[in-house]
């Protein structure tokens, strides 16, 4: 199968500071790929580079057969890549419903946006209850639901989830992982970054371990979960 997202030799960073070095990574369509590694490893930087919020210094990002590494963020979103950013980044000054509908701002998402809105309300009844409230007034877990719902409004094929469980209560963490599995069942392709390595690798099909801006290990997720070295270093076992 050809990968939906195929990154080769990617390096990127902030201005003169290089963070990611020679990253290569593939995401198969319909799969969950986990990107795990400690705080500061470069997971968020990689997510931002995939969406074009940061420009790649070198290397290629091939999505759906075309190199998108030079295109602006809005055309990547319009191509079907949606990011659920670290820290959720919902718009506090907009209502829940405005946040969701703004998620469909790109042309590809115009058609059927209201149907998708209803579908998201069915899936997340909490968002429907709160649809006229300002997003800033919601709890962290609710904001995470909103950020995921907002990404779905863009009618994506590839969903990038950047540390979606950060700062959430254990019960919400479980819920978020259920949602992620459901996304795969619904036919979406998911790239998931997590510090919660064990849960992420248990949920994912494929895994990449990233440290100090380089991929140190990769393979089928179930193999990584059982790898004694991984267990020792990342799960603290």
């Amino acid at each position: 199968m050809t990968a939906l997202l195929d990154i080769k030799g990617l390096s990127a960073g902030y201005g003169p500071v290089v963070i990611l070095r020679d990253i290569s990574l593939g995401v198969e369509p319909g799969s969950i790929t986990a990107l795990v590694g400690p705080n500061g490893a470069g997971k968020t930087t990689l997510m931002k580079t995939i969406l074009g919020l940061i420009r790649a210094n070198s290397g290629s990002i091939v999505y759906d057969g075309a190199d998108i590494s030079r295109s602006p963020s809005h055309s990547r979103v319009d191509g079907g890549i949606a990011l659920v950013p670290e820290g959720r980044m919902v718009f506090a000054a907009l209502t829940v419903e405005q946040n969701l509908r703004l998620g469909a701002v790109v042309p590809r998402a115009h058609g059927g946006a209201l149907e998708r809105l209803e579908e998201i309300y069915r899936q997340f009844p909490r968002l429907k209850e709160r649809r006229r409230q300002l997003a800033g007034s919601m709890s962290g877990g609710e904001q995470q639901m909103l950020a995921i719902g907002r990404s779905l409004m863009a009618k994506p094929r590839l969903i990038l989830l950047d540390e979606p469980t950060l700062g959430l209560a254990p019960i919400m963490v479980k819920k978020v992982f259920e949602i992620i599995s459901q996304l795969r069942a619904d036919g979406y392709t998911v790239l998931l970054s997590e510090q919660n390595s064990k849960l992420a690798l248990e949920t994912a099909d494929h895994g990449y371990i990233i440290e100090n801006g380089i991929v140190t290990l990769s393979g089928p997720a179930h193999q990584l979960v059982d790898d004694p070295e991984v267990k020792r270093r990342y799960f603290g076992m």
Partner: protein
Amino acid sequence: MFQQLLFAAVVSGALYALVALGLNLVYGSLRLLNIAHGDLVMIGAYTAFWSFTLLGISPVVSLATTTVLCAAFGFLVYVVLLKRQLGSPALAQRLEANSLIIFYGLSVILQNGASLAFSATSRGYQFLDGVHMFGGVSATGSMLLLLGVAAAITLGALAFLRFHVAGWSLLAVIERKDAAAVVGVNVERVQMISICAGFAIAGIAGVLVSMTQQITPFMGFPFTIAAFVVVIMGGLGNIAAGIAAGFVLGFIETFGVALTSATYRSILIYGIFVGVLLLRPQGLFGKAVQAR
């Protein structure tokens, strides 16, 4: 007497709200303080004046020509002075500081250019100056036109921000540029349109002012100051609160001057400015957006 003052307050409040709306659009979406904002009011005023006196064109038509003219000027400023620098994070950092100098330079050029071209003489013309009476209030047609246009634009802006997805895109860019880019908002385009709209609104305000007051090449500065006061009162980048604050300033100014004397006008305005900065730097109503 009271109704007359009230009417005067509403008219000047509407004008302040309009001028400040333009400034706030540019600040909100680009985080740049346009010190030349009032000078665009002056450009609009002269456009209306010359169109009327030389060509006999009604200021109502000048509203449209000024919109196009000032929007085009905004586009030029965006493309020539700002676009490249906003595009790179390193240059954008410096632009925030440099923008004061860029816009100050623009202001000096516009003021002195106008005074060279048109001389510093104050000018005016008569348009819709017949007085209408209703309910103890006497109002000229030009004041009513000013009020109508200013109200239409400010209310239109509020409705746009509330009901249209493009309005939410603008609010998103104002709140967090990077998050707006995440959802696929074309941030550069929003910024470009904002600067065009901000400049156009200033020009429109100038046309309205020219119908009711004498104009000079240096009339812009007090408008810049008033707009700053209003925008600070409302909270920087907070568009809706800025519109409300415009009316607040109109009321404070009109009633303040009526209770004291016209010599206190500037003291009043600067006093409010300093007072708000000291006591409620986040604005009277909501909160200011984060500088970044």
